[in-house]
Structure formats: C-alpha cells, structure tokens
C-alpha cells in the first residue's frame, strides 16, 4: 500500500487555530466569535493580533450564532468557535432559521467533537453533530482527519460562500496528510487504491482505517481507503466508482451510526448500488469518561474494529 508517515502527532484544533491566524492576516472580512473557550479553540493568536475582529460573546451560544448571522449582512465572514456540543444541539434552532434557512455565510467551527474529547465524559462528547448538521438544507458539513487537513479546510471554507459546519477535535493524533495541501470541498480523497473492499472513513478514524489497510495487506486483502472529509455534499461519484470496483463497504467514523457518514453512504448505495455495508460507529449509546484511546477501544472505534468489519463484510460479499 501507499505509505503514510506521521510527521508528529498534533491536535486538529490547532490546525484550525493556525489557519484562523493566517486568515486574520489575509482576509479582512473574517471575524471570529467565541463563547468563552478561546484557549481551547486555539484562538488566542487571532484574539491577540486582531482584537478589533474578535468578538467575545461570553457563555451565550444562541446569541453568538445569531450575531454571526447578522454580521454577514454587511459582508463579514464570521467564524464561530465553541465545542461541537454547544455548536449544534444547543443552538440548533438558531442555526436552522438564521443561518441555514437564511443561507448566511456563517462558518460554525466545532472542536472537541466525538468520543475522543475524553475525560469530560458524555455531557461534552457530541456524536450526533454530523447528523444534525447534514439534515439542514444549504449546510456544508466537513470533518477533516488531521492537523494539516484541518488547517487547509479552514482556509478553504473562508473562500466558500454559504453556511458551513467544520468539525474537529481535542486529542493529538497522527499528522500524515501533506502540509500546504489544497482542500477541495466535496472531493473525496483516495488514500490507497484497492480491489477487495472500500473503506470510507472520516475524521480521526481515517488514520485507523490506514492502519487497518496495512494489516489487511499482510493478510492478502486489498483495501481501498477513502477519506471522506466532506460529509455533505457527499462525493457520490467517488463513492460509487470505488464500490463498483470492490463490491463491498466499511464505513468508519467517530459518531453515532444514526445520522453519520455510514448512514449517508448506505442511503446512496441503497438507491444506486446495493452492496454489503458494515459500519464502524457508535451504536446508539452515549459516551463516558476515559482517555481517548481507551474510549475508542471500548466503543468499538479502533483499528481492530475496522479489521473485524472488513472481515465481516467480505464474508457477506462472498455469500
């Protein structure tokens, strides 16, 4: 398989923070709003160097989202920053009416998404966010896989007109995609070509999928690994092209099975190309406290779980 090297583990939120600082320098229309989580969101550099374009709202996310919507009227490009939990469910109605339905150019940037938020536990581990956001018409939903890709995605959404939900996380994870890459919204990335099975992964689980791919190769199984960084709009063409070749699918994500990437892929395949699908995702359960790695293991989101799903889907494909 194609080799991917971890150039040094980093948190994806820091990729976001670096990009925001860069945008502060290059795009005068960019405004940042933060609801009392500036250090956690890695927005300190932006806040320090561009105080006139940094709006501290206090712990008032509903107000923050609607202020952001108002700022677009006047040509600003507002980026809101808080955790995934407070970026979605807490403000769903505000996003629905003032951002999505009104088609406002607001970038909702959500850190600490998924189970790898870790020790804070289930109250903060949002694993429904992709589902909530992708259901909204007009909304683009992006979930990058590492530091470099998160940085590139952040820069790219500033150029995109329309509402965007950008999801990233807290823990340090392998950084393996190219620095300075060009990020194309809605364009799936084939990380490894294969013929026996398609593995569609998003976010932190992309690295796990690559680890699984390596192990599968040792066992003589050729897997195609595709990074679906844009959940919506889904790159249907890329998904179908891969599935026509392999004839079976494993999806992998740090999210509830209901409403996640697997759900989107299964919906597409049911309509266009029904094949066996196995899903590595959280199965209708809240999280709990623990370290990110412990939680990934316990909730079935680790490399062995991807392997297991591939084996299962290959059996189904053969029968």
């Amino acid at each position, binding site marked *: 398989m194609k080799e991917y090297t971890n150039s040094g583990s980093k948190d994806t939120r820091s990729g976001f923070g670096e990009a925001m600082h860069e945008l502060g320098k290059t795009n005068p229309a960019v405004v940042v709003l933060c609801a009392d989580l500036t250090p956690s969101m890695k927005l300190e550099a932006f806040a320090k160097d561009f105080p*006139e374009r940094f*709006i501290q*709202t206090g712990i008032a996310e509903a*107000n923050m989202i609607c*202020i952001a919507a*108002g700022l677009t009227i*006047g*040509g600003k490009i507002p980026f809101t920053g808080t955790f995934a939990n407070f970026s979605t469910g807490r403000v769903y109605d505000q996003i629905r*009416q003032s951002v999505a339905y*009104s088609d406002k150019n607001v970038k909702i940037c959500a850190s600490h998404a998924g189970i790898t938020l870790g020790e804070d536990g289930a109250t903060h581990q949002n694993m429904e966010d992709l589902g909530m956001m992708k259901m909204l018409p007009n909304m683009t939903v992006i979930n990058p896989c590492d530091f470099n890709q998160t940085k590139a995605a952040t820069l790219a959404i500033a150029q995109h007109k329309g509402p965007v939900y950008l999801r990233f996380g807290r823990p340090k994870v392998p950084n393996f995609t190219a620095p300075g890459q060009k990020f194309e919204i809605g364009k799936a990335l084939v990380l490894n070509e294969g013929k026996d099975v398609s593995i569609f992964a998003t976010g932190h689980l992309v690295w796990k999928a690559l680890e699984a791919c390596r192990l599968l190769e040792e066992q003589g199984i050729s897997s195609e690994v595709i990074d679906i960084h844009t959940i919506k709009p889904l790159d249907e063409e890329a998904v179908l092209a891969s599935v026509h070749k392999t004839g079976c699918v494993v999806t992998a994500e740090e999210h509830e099975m209901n409403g996640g990437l697997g759900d989107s892929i299964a919906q597409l395949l049911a309509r266009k190309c029904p094949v066996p699908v196995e899903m590595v995702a959280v199965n209708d359960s809240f999280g709990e406290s623990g370290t990110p790695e412990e939680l990934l293991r316990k909730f079935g989101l680790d490399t062995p779980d991807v392997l297991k799903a591939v084996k299962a889907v290959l059996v189904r494909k053969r029968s």
Partner: protein
Amino acid sequence: MPTIEELQQISTQVRRDIIRMVNGAASGHPGGSLGVADFLTVLYFEIMRPDAAAFDMDGKQEDLFFLSNGHLAPAWYSVMARYGFFPVHELGTLRKLGSRLQGHPSPMDKLPGIRIASGSLGQGLSVSIGAAIAKKMNGDPHLIYTLCGDGELQEGQNWEALMFAPARKVDNLVAVVDYNGKQIDGPVDKVMPLGNLRAKFEAFGWEVTDMDGNNTREVLSVLNTVKTRTGKGKPNMIIMHTHMGCGVDFMMDNHEWHGVPPNNEQAAKALSQLQETLGDY
C-alpha cells in the same frame, strides 16, 4: 416628506391590507400586525426611507430594519409593498403556494426588503446586534432598527442579547418592543409576567424610552428623538405601547385575535371601519 395626515392614510391602508391578506389566506396573525401598522409606516416612510430599487443583501450605507416577531409579516409586507419594494398586487399571494410572501418572512424567495428569516422567536435582537457591529466595522454611520414582541421577551436568548449590546457599546442599534400585553394564551402578565421592563432594561445598561405606538405624531417625534441618542455609548430601547388589533373595534385589545383570521363577514365589518385611502391591491 409625507405629512402626519398622509402617514395616517398609509397606515390605514396598511390595516386594510392586513385584514384582506389574512382573510384571503384564511390564516395568519392580524392582531399584532394591526398594532404595529403606525410604527412601521413612520419607520419606512419617514425615518429610514430606504432605496427600495437598490435593495441588496448587504445594505451598506443605509438604515436597516429586522423583524424579530416574524408573525407580524402581514404588516411588514404591506408597508414594504406600499413603499415600493415589490408590487402591491403581490400582497394577495400571502401564504399561498409559490408565493414570495411566506407565512413568516424569509429571504429564500428573494423578496426585496427581507434579509433574514424570522418566526421562531427570540433571534432578531441578536441578528440586529450582528448587523450593527458590521456597520461599525465598515465605518458605516447608519442605524439598525429591530422590532420584537413583548411575549417574545420570554425567550432566554433575548436576555443574552440584552446583556451583550450595552457591554459592547452597540450604540447604533434601536430596539423596539411591541408592548401590547397580549400573547397566544392570554395576557402577558398572566402567561409569564415581564415585571418592570424599563427597570430591567436600564439595569442591563440600555437607554430606555416609552412611546405610544398607535399615535403617529408621537411615533415620529420619539423616533427622531431616539435617533439623537444613538452613537453615545449605549444601545437604545423603545417600549412601544400598542393595542393588539388597533383600528378594528371588535379585535382591539383581544388576545384571541393573535393568530386567527377574520372570516368574510368579520373582514367586511373590519374593512367598514378602515377607509380605503390608497386603493386596495
């Protein structure tokens, strides 16, 4: 510039429009809409005087208005159509399939004059703060006006916004509360009392002014006075005292007309109390 009498003629026609629109749609919210007809008429025809033909989403270099209590759309649509944002005959399409005049306002169908959706309550004050900050960032000296309902203040988000605006000195904002004391389930004071609103707003740091919202002369003079109080470090709040159903005797001050359309007989009775001044659509 229109005279007081001309403004009153416009708001009377707006009231006729409201009755005919909600009767034609067999649904909608006549009560609150009738109550704010005078205010919206003065705001558009005398205070803001926007360039309707040059409408664009960014609204730079002009005053902007945001309706937070979107169910008052019939009044807003009528004032905008009468002002020249879109053809008056389109008022007859309210709430009908394919219309740009949705039950609650939306920019989706590109109806000139509308910049954001409203209907789910409690969001407009925050949106207005955002638009006001954008004006400041752009060095645009114009003002943001917004209207919300009194019952709407029961939504918690308003109090986040009420805290924010004075703290960040959003002094190019004029917020207006339609204080008619009525909401769907009954008098506001019974459903969930607001207490001493003036004291609450002042405690939060707003400059507060009372106004009789159904007296054209007073609306004009108070809005002009409040204008002189902008740009001085504090956001402005107007507690606008209105009558739900104002202009139609059997609807006046009756919360049951919040969201019920008049039937044909009731509409005819209502219209007999409102003189046709500018020609019906």
